[in-house]
């Protein structure tokens, strides 16, 4: 059943000047699932994200979204198809306010983003929706603060709100809880569970309790190849995984 799969890679590989970062990965992400991508440092997880979102060209292989070949699209086109990524390091627009950050995401569908002659006040029609999105991540009181001045955990929350503003079909989250304190981790995990309803999430995450808690399916990557795949129980029992991942990283 091909339309059961929302995102699929077939033997995708990426080499950097002869160094193989991803060595032929076939990934199948089911519609509506929360799919975890885990593995030790340097396994190629972020590189996979870069390939899936076309931030990097593949060396070989095919990428399918809803069964259609997207291997040669531009990154912005992939984003507009509803496959939206976040970044391993927090990615906000520091000189824009929190509200303006979310509004940038809301602004594009308005179709006025090339209008250099329109006043910025024409964007205020988006303010209510932007505030509602900020409310979803408890940022409503910081709407007018420049994003660069937010503490780290709040930046990640803002990043999520901005991503959600696009109403993405597939969310690619690269270590959404990295560098967060214990409280923030719980809060973000809860948020991911909430926003995952009706969407598909592919997430890279080092915090295994978050992975165990959220993910339906887990793919373990090591040295650019798939080591194991299945539920958390299955992969965590796999001796090869224990050897490559738990053994070295945990």
């Amino acid at each position, binding site marked *: 059943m091909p339309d059961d799969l929302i995102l699929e890679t077939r033997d995708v590989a990426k080499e950097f000047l002869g160094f193989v970062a991803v060595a032929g990965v076939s990934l199948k992400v089911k519609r509506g699932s929360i799919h975890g991508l885990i593995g030790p440092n340097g396994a190629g997880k972020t590189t996979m994200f870069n390939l899936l979102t076309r*931030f990097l060209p593949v060396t070989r292989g095919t990428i399918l979204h809803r069964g259609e070949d997207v291997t040669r699209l531009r990154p912005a086109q992939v984003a507009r198809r509803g496959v939206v990524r976040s970044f391993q390091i927090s990615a906000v627009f520091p000189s824009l306010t929190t509200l303006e950050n979310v509004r940038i995401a809301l602004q594009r569908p308005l179709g006025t983003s090339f209008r250099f*002659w*329109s006043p910025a006040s024409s964007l205020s029609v988006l303010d209510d929706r932007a505030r509602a999105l900020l409310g979803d991540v408890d940022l409503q009181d910081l709407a007018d603060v420049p994003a660069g001045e937010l503490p780290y955990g709040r930046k990640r929350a803002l990043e999520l709100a901005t991503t959600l503003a696009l109403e993405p079909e597939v969310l690619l989250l690269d270590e959404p809880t990295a560098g967060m304190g214990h409280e923030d981790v719980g809060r973000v995990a809860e948020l991911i569970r909430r926003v995952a309803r009706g969407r598909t999430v592919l997430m890279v995450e080092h915090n295994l309790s978050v992975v165990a808690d959220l993910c339906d399916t887990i793919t373990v990557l090591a040295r650019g190849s798939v080591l194991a795949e299945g539920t958390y129980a299955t992969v965590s029992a796999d001796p090869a995984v224990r050897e490559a991942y738990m053994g070295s990283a945990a």
Partner: protein
Amino acid sequence: MTVPSPRRWSGQAIFMGWATLVAVGLAAPFVVYPVFLMNVLCMALFASAFNLLLGYTGLLSFGHAAFLGSAGYVAGHAAKAWGVDPLLAILAGTAVATVLGFVIGSLAIRRSGIYFAMITLGFAQMVYFLAVQLPFTGGEDGLQGIPRGRLLGLVRLENSFAMYYLVFAIFLVGFAVIHRTIHSPFGHVLRSIKDNEPRALSLGYDVDRYKLLAFVISAGLAGLAGATKALAMQFETLTDVHWHKSGEVVLMTLLGGMGTVLGPSVGAIIVVTMENYLTGFGDWVTVIIGCVFVVGVLAFRRGFVGEALNLARRFRS
């Protein structure tokens, strides 16, 4: 280097700012030599156009003289050889710079950082070469005695006051275009690209197209400044297409404060004034300006206007 963007100037403050600007501009030629003022205004517009790229899009062009100079030559030639209306001559120069901006911009924006700067510099050198070689530019002598003509066939612009007010009006139009562009839906996207380009891309913006439009607007307005300057000064020479000019505009913008609306104009006033009053020092002018630049940038990292805004912001909060 983060620029303190003045958040939320009230409409009243903006109106007062514009009113002050207009009042000062209207009164200035009664106090200061008009030809000098025209030079200042043209360079201020040039630097403001440049700042749209550097300060608001994060692109460092090192070839902006190409737009200033090519527009100056075209406008000067149109006025001198064809005797067209001065406005038409200025429009012709602006149009050529805009098209040139599209050509150079389309190729340069494919790279970023230092490579972008080098590509723009490379193209500007080609434009310089053309300016030396093409017959209509007058080579080393440049174009001399460009007639200012009659505005719309009515107003004699040989009168320096009349010419000054035309230049001032053009400056205001150019400045207004820049101000609006910064504060438009497009301007917000530009700022997001400057802040974090991969993130803007991941939100579905084809960032190259936004950069290109910013480049074309900037080149066009730089051309507007150059074309106007050629008529105001009544000559056009290789100085305006030389890479020194491309460097000078970087200097003005940083000195005044990049990413601030008024900074480049303040920088232009400082640099043009120094060049004007220090001519007696000969080659030492560049050394003196260089020293002022080094001291200015070391002491006021955000530029004069940037530091002033930062102070004002701290007082308010």
